[in-house]
């Protein structure tokens, strides 16, 4: 499985609001499609996404099958202190994946 692509500044000024963009490789199988013999393809989506910053939750989302394949998400964070930003997402099978980035606040 391909690694997600994350875009965020490495360094920001205290108090500045910055965007985090993430692109995750995932088919987001909606549960609405059928295969070539007409059998329904079971739903298999990322249903939860959480972002923490210095251990504190900044952003959380519940995804439904209406989120497009290979989910793309932009949200913003307010620069408080240098630290680690961790993004974790969980799919219908209960499997979690995470990625972290470091941010320097000047």
């Amino acid at each position, binding site marked *: 499985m391909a690694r997600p692509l994350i875009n965020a500044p490495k360094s920001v000024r205290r108090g500045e609001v910055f965007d985090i963009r993430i692109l995750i490789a995932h088919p987001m199988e909606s549960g609405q499609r059928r295969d070539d013999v007409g059998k329904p393809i079971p739903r298999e989506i990322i249903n939860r996404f959480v972002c923490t910053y210095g251990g504190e939750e900044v*952003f959380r989302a519940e*995804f439904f099958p*209406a989120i*497009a394949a290979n989910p793309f998400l*932009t949200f*913003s964070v307010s*620069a408080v202190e240098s630290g680690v930003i961790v993004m974790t997402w969980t799919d219908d099978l209960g499997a979690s994946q995470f990625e972290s980035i470091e941010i320097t606040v000047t």
Partner: protein
Amino acid sequence: MHRRMLLAGAALLALPPARAGATKPEVAAAIQALTGGAKLRQGRIKLDIPLLVENGNAVAMTVSVPDAVSEAERIRSIHVFAEGNPNPNVINAFFGPRSGRPGLSTRIRLATSQTVIAVAACADGTFWTDSIELLVTLAACIDEI
């Protein structure tokens, strides 16, 4: 502050009242569960989706908060519904205090031409909404899968 409230009030008068009557029962029930019956007002949040969608498999959507709000009015969560989808829920997003500018962009699936509705819950107990009615055209070439 006062002026913005007035403007929001004026917008309320000009617009059909929160699409009452038009909203699908399923979506209306979901919104009712969210708001506990509190009034939905226009303003505070802005929904952006192209009015003409080329392919419903991935449609860029942004919900933003155009004007700064006070700490007491902070946007706590944003909920998006697509009335014409088999499952109208699209996304529920929750914003912590360190989220500088509540709002989000993502790409969504739209099964057909329809109305998409965003609802925001604020820390002051108020609920705000914006909606867009859009057209989805479909790709013409048939694929093997």
